[in-house]
């Protein structure tokens, strides 16, 4: 009996590994963020719209917030922009933007033409904050908990699908926790 059960279990395990490895849904180019569950990196940037004011992690201290890295050269950012606009109207979670490796003029023009979904945007022209946050391709969206920890990271345009399946449950769980 054992003679058949052991190889069968081993075979089953291998099949499991292969199914996971070959999953067409899995994008091997997407890197998991090493910051998940850890405190989000500190940042302190000039604001996009008000260059002589600064914005830092303190802007969302003690509340659940979304930090979205975007840029005007980024096609995916244009793609998700409409959905961010919708979220800014319908969701209670504040969205903070970080204009990443961009120029101020086109960025301001972008916001005035397409609308500004952000409570405020930081201006990270030389990607110091981007690197500190492990950003490697815009758009990237982080969900930050009340204690400042990174709860989620989404690569690529934020879709309704990702919002409903990943963000909403995580937000509900985070809001439930007392700060």
């Amino acid at each position, binding site marked *: 009996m054992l003679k058949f059960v052991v190889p069968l279990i081993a075979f089953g395990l291998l099949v499991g590994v292969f199914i996971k490895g070959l999953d067409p849904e899995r994008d091997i180019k997407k*890197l998991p963020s090493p910051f998940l569950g850890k405190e989000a990196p500190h940042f302190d940037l000039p604001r996009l719209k008000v260059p002589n004011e600064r914005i830092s992690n303190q802007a969302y201290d003690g509340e659940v917030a979304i930090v979205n890295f975007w840029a005007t050269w980024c096609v995916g950012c244009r793609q998700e922009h409409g959905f961010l606009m919708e979220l800014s109207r319908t969701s209670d979670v504040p969205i903070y933007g970080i204009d990443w490796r961009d120029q101020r003029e086109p960025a301001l023009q972008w916001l005035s033409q397409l609308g500004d979904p952000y409570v405020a945007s930081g201006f990270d022209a030389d990607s110091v904050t981007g690197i500190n946050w492990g950003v490697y391709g815009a758009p990237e969206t982080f969900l930050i908990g009340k204690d400042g920890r990174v709860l989620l990271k989404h690569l690529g345009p934020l879709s309704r699908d990702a919002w409903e399946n990943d963000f909403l449950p995580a937000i509900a769980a985070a809001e439930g926790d007392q700060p």
Partner: protein
Amino acid sequence: MSRLFLGVICLLVGWSVWAIDTGRAFEDDEMQARYVEIISEVRCVQCQNQTIKDSNVQIASDLRREIRRLLSEGKTNAQVFEFLVQRYGDFVLYRPPMSGFSLLLWIAPGLFLLFGGIVAARVISKRMTMPLDVDDDEIHQVES
């Protein structure tokens, strides 16, 4: 024809001139050597089959700039790698450390060999205690 061929060769050979940061990063030979060593060990996170030394993608040049800054601040190579791993994970290293999941990958062949060896040894020892197959003709020969 051969001229065209030569032209194409020249173009291909000259292509590397387009790589950016061609100038030296550091005056000091030792620092420059360390810098080159580090950037040859770091994977470009966007163009994932290149080192940041060979990539002219913007993020690679940003990372090179950060590495130059860290080195000029007097950080050790280990500290520079730690800086990168903290932000991008083990994936940025072309030689990831032998820990966690990668440790499993390293020892898996040994485990397979050990497991196979045990199975083989058991099968062989079982076979050795079994009576030899004797066919009917031989039995008849012995009887007669």
